[in-house]
């Protein structure tokens, strides 16, 4: 502890001002809008607004959908990350690039793409509808699909990075001791990249919680069914901006608490 503080002091003398100034500007740019939300919040009426039925409904739905989407991402994302990191198929680099496309795709476009594939007249959705009577748009399941689509790359990239950084010798040792591939993955590989998995899952969850564009395009907006917090914020802006601010504060609070709680425990260990 004391050693690090002396090291910090000596470093401070060498800190170039040319970097400090833009750094402070950057920090202000990121924090001031959030401060604005806090400053303009109608604190007096916050309790009344918070305990309205709509807000509770939207928040519950948001938490349920973001958590379900994270589970979906874990189930499909971890194997995908493993394939990208350990697979020995040509063209994996290209696949890796494709996996990150939803990261840069405008979410609304993602929503339209989902409609074209999974909608009632979509390439796959058409058959889902005919054979099983399943129709995803305008359902809570549709919200989960939209959120998972947008958030999964976060998890895959995070887990894949951890897998690449993991020491393969442990896996080799397990294999020489006669462990099957599946056992090795479960008992050796997965525990060794757990911090990466947790960090990825948290990012994925936070992204899913804030997802707006793909959700409103693919799942629509119906209170209690598909109106998540970001959608509620957007529609509250139309009538009562103060309501929107309060809703935003809730989202902000939930995100900060979750990220802060997990950052100390996991993320530092992962990076």
């Amino acid at each position, binding site marked *: 502890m004391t050693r690090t503080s002396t090291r910090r002091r000596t470093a401070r003398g060498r800190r170039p001002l040319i970097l400090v100034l833009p750094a402070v500007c950057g920090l202000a740019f990121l924090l001031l809008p959030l401060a604005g939300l806090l400053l303009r919040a109608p604190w007096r009426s916050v309790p009344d607004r918070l305990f309205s039925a709509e807000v509770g409904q939207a928040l519950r739905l948001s938490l349920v959908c973001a958590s379900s989407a994270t589970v979906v991402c874990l189930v499909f994302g971890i194997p995908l990350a493993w394939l990208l990191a350990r697979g020995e198929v040509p063209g994996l680099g290209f696949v890796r690039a494709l996996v990150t496309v939803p990261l840069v795709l405008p979410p609304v476009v993602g929503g339209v793409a989902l409609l*074209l594939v999974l909608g*009632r007249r979509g390439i796959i959705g058409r058959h889902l509808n005919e054979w099983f009577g399943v129709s995803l748009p305008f359902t809570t399941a549709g919200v989960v699909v939209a959120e998972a689509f947008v958030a999964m790359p976060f998890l895959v990239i995070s887990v894949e990075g951890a897998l690449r950084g993991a020491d393969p010798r442990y896996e080799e040792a397990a294999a020489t001791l006669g462990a099957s591939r599946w056992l090795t993955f479960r008992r050796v590989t997965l525990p060794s990249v757990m911090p990466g998995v947790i960090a990825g899952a948290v990012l994925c969850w936070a992204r899913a919680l804030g997802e707006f564009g793909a959700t409103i395009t693919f799942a629509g907006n119906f209170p209690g069914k598909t109106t998540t917090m970001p959608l509620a914020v957007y529609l509250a802006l139309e009538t009562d901006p103060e309501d929107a601010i309060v809703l935003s504060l809730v989202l902000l609070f939930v995100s900060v608490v979750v990220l802060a709680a997990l950052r100390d425990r996991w993320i530092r260990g992962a990076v």
Partner: protein
Amino acid sequence: MFRSLSAVALTGAVALTLVGCGSDKSSDPAPADNISGTVTVFAAASLTETFTELGKQFEAAHPGTKVVYSFGASSALAEQIKQGAPIDVFASAAPKNMQQVVDAGDITATPVTFVRNRLEIAVPKGNPGHITGLADFGKTEPKIALCAEQVPCGAAAKTVFEIAGVNPQPDTREADVKAVLTKVTLGEVDAALVYRTDVKAAGDKVEGIDFPEADKAINDYPVAALAKAPNSAAATAFVTFIESDRARAVFTKAGFDNP
């Protein structure tokens, strides 16, 4: 988030164009009315096609001008104006949203109603849900999209349902009328309530069904120049142009009613 970003982008675009105009020493003969530069127009989503066309005509009539648009829900646009968006002209799909801007002191001129619009039932091509009228909106089987009640088309829909005594069972309430129309165009819903002009604009992908109660919820569209319009001469000229006979022809063709 997206909206604030687009506002920033818009401001940036405006600033750039203004800079561009300032440094533009072209030898074009100046128009007699001395109007030039960028006109920034906020207009209701249902005006997208007509205003885009009219903008081109306006630019042709006044060389040196450029019309820049932001189309969206009137309620959202009104909110952005109250937050100080630097724009010249506001065209709303409902007097209510125009009034909000007037009350905020951002518009001092008297807004003029330049067109009227009525609701129509929109169904995907071939009417797969076999929709016949407003009563179908009260049934649970068909998939139905409506505008959110906060935006003008949603408020108008609420009025006609009350008159018809129908309790609508929507599957989704979209943020603006074009989003509702998209759901119909893609065949994701069996029926929706949009404006007659939207049905026309969608071409042959969408069929419209008229219903009698539509007469009771006619939307007036007011337009006005902003008090603090950055380009006030051009703003006034644009509003005058929107009220002209030439513009009326474009509106009528698109399915709008005369005020």
